[in-house]
């Protein structure tokens, strides 16, 4: 597997009136060619900031990439000039945003909006670009592309608009596609269509996808690997099976047991107590410690490093330290771990 994108020890802060908000506090991950990496976490955990940093879309006036690098095919994106970055953005790396209503320009026909990146990056003539745009519209499943080409965003339904946004993002066959909650604003049936479409297109043009969401069901559907973020850090990363069936971090345990599956019976739903940390004054130790019933003394004092669970699976919790006491994860997680053993044996 070749790495296409590497994020190393990224730190990002925002300067606000009340002080410095340390939104990202040391994020590391790789993205392999052709894979889908899902980043999950609650709002404020830093998943969108990470993705915007890769696209260099953070506001320059108050944000600051304090340290770290984002390597795309060996180039450090944090050091590129604005002009050089413009050549990458939309061509090699492109992005799908959450709300298809606000990410399209209401005063331009969708055709024009799709042609924009094609003309800019591929230097095609207008006529050739138009042909290509119609091809893409067809690819993302829009009927009558010739007619639709000249229509405005308000003439499309929510799901159709998101298809148009995907068409724009894919117009130049990007190597990396960042999808920031692309289906959150859509209905389940439309969501299922869009997810199928994205998986299908990924096979056709072999892009790598970073998929940001807080819906674990969607993650289970699309992801090859999963990174769980909390308080500006990745607390657990692994293949989708490892994270869903053999989670190690108490935060992942909490996330997984707080979602009812269709066979959750009448037992009370597990709720993670408390609220996310305030990153204006990030806690000294593990950011999750105050909400963590398994927290030990060391959690309050020192941040845990990433412990290796398997070659692909890492988690940042002191519970994995050889000296840590053995704890029983919540019932829902134990059930999943048994499932994990079955799956392993099945293979």
């Amino acid at each position: 597997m070749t790495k296409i994108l590497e994020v190393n020890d990224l730190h990002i802060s925002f300067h606000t009136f009340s002080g410095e908000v340390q939104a990202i506090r040391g994020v590391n991950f790789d993205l392999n060619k052709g894979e889908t990496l899902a980043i999950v976490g609650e709002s404020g955990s830093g998943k969108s900031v990470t993705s915007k940093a890769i696209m260099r879309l953070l506001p320059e006036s108050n944000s600051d990439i304090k340290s770290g690098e984002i390597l795309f095919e060996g180039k450090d994106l944090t050091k590129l000039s604005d002009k050089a970055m413009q050549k990458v953005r939309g061509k090699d790396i492109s992005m799908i945003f959450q709300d298809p209503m606000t990410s399209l320009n209401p005063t331009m026909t969708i055709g024009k909006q799709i042609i924009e990146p094609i003309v800019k990056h591929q230097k095609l003539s207008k006529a050739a670009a138009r042909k290509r745009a119609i091809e893409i519209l067809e690819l993302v499943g829009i009927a009558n592309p010739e007619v639709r080409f000249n229509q405005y965003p308000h003439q499309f339904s929510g799901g159709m608009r998101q298809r148009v946004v995907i068409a724009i993002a894919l117009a130049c066959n990007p190597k990396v596609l960042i999808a920031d909650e692309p289906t959150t604003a859509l209905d389940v049936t439309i969501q299922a269509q869009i997810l199928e479409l994205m998986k299908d297109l990924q096979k056709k043009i072999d892009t790598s996808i970073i998929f940001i969401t807080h819906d674990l069901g969607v993650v289970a559907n699309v992801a090859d690997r999963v990174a769980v973020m909390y308080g500006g850090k990745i607390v657990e990363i692994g293949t989708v099976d490892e994270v869903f069936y053999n989670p190690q971090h108490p935060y992942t345990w909490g996330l997984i047991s707080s979602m009812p599956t269709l066979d959750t019976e009448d037992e009370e739903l597990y709720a993670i107590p408390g609220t996310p940390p305030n990153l204006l004054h990030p806690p000294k130790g593990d950011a999750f410690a105050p909400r963590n019933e398994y927290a030990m003394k060391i959690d309050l004092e020192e941040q845990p490093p990433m412990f290796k669970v398997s070659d692909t699976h890492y988690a940042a919790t002191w519970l994995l330290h050889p000296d840590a006491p053995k704890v029983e994860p919540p019932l829902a997680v134990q059930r999943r771990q048994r499932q994990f053993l079955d799956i392993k044996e099945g293979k």
Partner: protein
Amino acid sequence: MASNEKLVEIKNLKQYFNIGKPNEVRAVDDISFDIFKGETLGLVGESGCGKSTTGRTIIRLYDATDGEVIFNGVDVHGKKKKQELKDFNRKMQMIFQDPQASLNPRMKVSDIIAEGIDIHGLAKTKEERMNRVVELLETVGLNKEHANRYPHEFSGGQRQRIGIARALAVEPEFIIADEPISALDVSIQAQVVNLMKKLQKEKGLTYLFIAHDLSMVKYISDRIGVMYFGKLVELAPADELYNNPIHPYTQSLLSAIPLPDPNYERNRKRKTYNPKVHNYSEGDNVQFREIKPGHFVQCSEKEFEQYKAQYK
């Protein structure tokens, strides 16, 4: 738990917008169902299917175009005296989707919660009013320091708790919750759902829970109704609906829910729904029919026989 006593009866309810104009919308088109005392009835469907409009029409935020909503034996709609309306408003309350937009940013939390108490004269002295507010805040897991703050000082989950406290302030019997958790984070959703369940147990509340997150709806509801284009297409006890969905739309909706289980997701077969499969012709008497005790499906007579045969 749910009893057999009907608290709300909805009979042939219709809510049309822009009547008589070319852009007439039949948001709710002739639906009928009952809500029993103490139960949670979940209402699901895609956006635009009329589920929120149904909720809003039941509580009289919209005047119904036609049909009846009978609450405790009295029709909610139609001309009402002031006092009647007031009594009714006290018994039925609503929790809204967006806790940011549904709380007045210029009012203190104590005033937001006490507004209903003031209107209905439920507290005689200032002290009593404040005690009541503190009690409510504690019921929903906040504390009395929160009473003098403004909504913007709270997180989304806390704001939704304030919304719930406000609904509880007038001691209602029936609460309509319109997507109360959709705007919240996963870890906070569980907190709010647990709170709603706890309150139901303690106070014997009846809920109409409107949502599109089907796994959460299944978890909280006793019975679930599925809406499609202004019609109720299926209504059944929660387990029954998930195990034996009969209407093709329900089947397609259920097959589209992503579950947090990668193995299941890999093997998922999605069904699509095409309204044409019914092949209804004119004169087909398409009605809401009971296939099995408590399990209703919108179907024609022919389909009714088919579904019933399938069942055995």
